[in-house]
């Protein structure tokens, strides 16, 4: 019952968020600020995680699939598919849900408990739209870029460890990552990243916006925002995969 109630409130929140902006130019500028604040600031963590995961995946594959009958380049081919199909979209977005989700929820939640949202409303500004819409749109624009970057850096990580640890030759690695390359898989992962970006930002904004109380409740909202974002990302991952690849 409570789930349905929250779902209804979430949909009503989205309706408010996507109502017509009072002044389009202000929202437009705000989108770029959010891209910088939420997306560009995540570049470091995305690069580090992707590089190391790329290295670890190829080490695992070489260690566990090492077989004279399987060519070496199959390992880099599989690494590429792991990165493209799941890691750089789903796992990365789960990580971003933790970082960006808690950031959004605590920021909006603090604004709620310190009456800043009330102040916006009393000025005649649609607070939900002003606070959440630029974040949602900004993340939907920047997340696919982060995903592409993650794939690229992950592949570089794989190449680096393959060559330096003599797992395979650089030429074999490059051959593997180019082997049977299907652009549809990249399209699929980009579609997923846009869906995940929408879910993590809107759910986090909703939890922040509906915070009531004080500092304790802001912390609780952040936790709930991250947990629900992650669950919804996993459910959406199944649904999109079933629709596009199933």
């Amino acid at each position, binding site marked *: 019952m409570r789930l349905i109630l929250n779902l209804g409130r979430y949909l009503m929140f989205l309706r408010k968020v996507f109502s017509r902006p009072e002044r389009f130019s*202000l929202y437009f500028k705000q989108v770029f600020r959010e891209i910088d604040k939420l997306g560009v600031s995540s570049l470091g963590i995305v690069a580090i995680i992707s590089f190391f995961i790329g290295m670890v995946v190829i080490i695992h594959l070489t260690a566990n699939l090492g077989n004279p009958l399987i060519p070496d380049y199959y390992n880099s081919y599989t690494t590429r598919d792991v990165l493209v199909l799941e890691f750089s979209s789903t796992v990365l977005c789960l990580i971003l849900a933790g970082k960006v989700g808690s950031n959004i929820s605590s920021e909006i939640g603090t604004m709620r408990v*310190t009456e800043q949202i009330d*102040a916006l*409303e*009393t000025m005649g500004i649609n607070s939900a739209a002003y606070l959440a819409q630029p974040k949602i749109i900004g993340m939907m624009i920047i997340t696919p870029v982060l995903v592409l970057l993650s794939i690229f850096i992950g592949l570089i990580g794989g190449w680096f460890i393959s060559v330096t640890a003599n797992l395979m030759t650089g030429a074999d690695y490059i051959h593997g990552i180019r082997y049977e390359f299907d652009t549809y898989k990249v399209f699929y992962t980009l579609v997923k990243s846009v869906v995940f970006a929408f879910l993590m930002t809107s759910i986090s904004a909703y939890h922040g916006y509906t915070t009531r109380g004080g500092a304790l409740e802001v912390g609780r909202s952040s936790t709930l925002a991250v947990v629900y974002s992650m669950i919804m990302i996993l459910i959406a991952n199944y649904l999109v995969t079933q629709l596009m690849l199933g």
Partner: protein
Amino acid sequence: MIRVENISKSFEGKAALSGITSSFEPARTNLIIGRSGSGKTVLMKCMIGMVEPDTGDIWYNENQFSLLVPEKQRAFRQQMGVVFQGGALFDSLTVEQNLKLPMDFFTDWKKDRKTERVNFCLEKVDLRGVNRLFPAELSGGMKKRVAIARAIVLNPKYLFCDEPNSGLDPQTAIMIDNLIREITVEFGITTVINTHDMNSVMEIGDHILFLSEGTKCWEGSRDEILTSDNKVLNDFVFASELMKKIK
């Protein structure tokens, strides 16, 4: 002029306001006083449309506020300035950006004109050279003054202040009170202030509405308050030894 008629509001079956009727005139400082939990803030939130009353009407001159659809209510709020208890300044914006935000949304003014207006409003509240500071860099009194400056930046017809001098030292509190009064008279604003500070009552209380347990208990001016024989009001007003001696 603002008129509230028979306003009632309950939360989970508990009455916060019962049948409040009063009117607040322009160019006067109208005070809503009462103990904590007496319904002052709920009444103010009803007046600015943050809380929907269960019964009753709120009139802004000839406009019945409660009959306006939410979009119209939002547009109507551009005529209101609200000073919240904690100031409610936007942490991520500088003082100047805080003041410019309503202008960015609701005016087509050029940048220079907006800056001019910001400086004018900051001068009015006796603040200079703080344009580039963030709220975290301001003292409590300065935050309140910036909040007042932001509230008047669009020349509102109605100004609402929720305990504007709470948490301030007596001198700053009186300065804030006088500032609000000056602005009210100078611009002919209908000002409504929530307070339980007796200094404010005696200093600027042109019209006072006293609430007790969600009901209207007494209404009058600051001169009448000292001679009233209303027991509940007297218990509130003369709670301190100092006030008893003054009486």
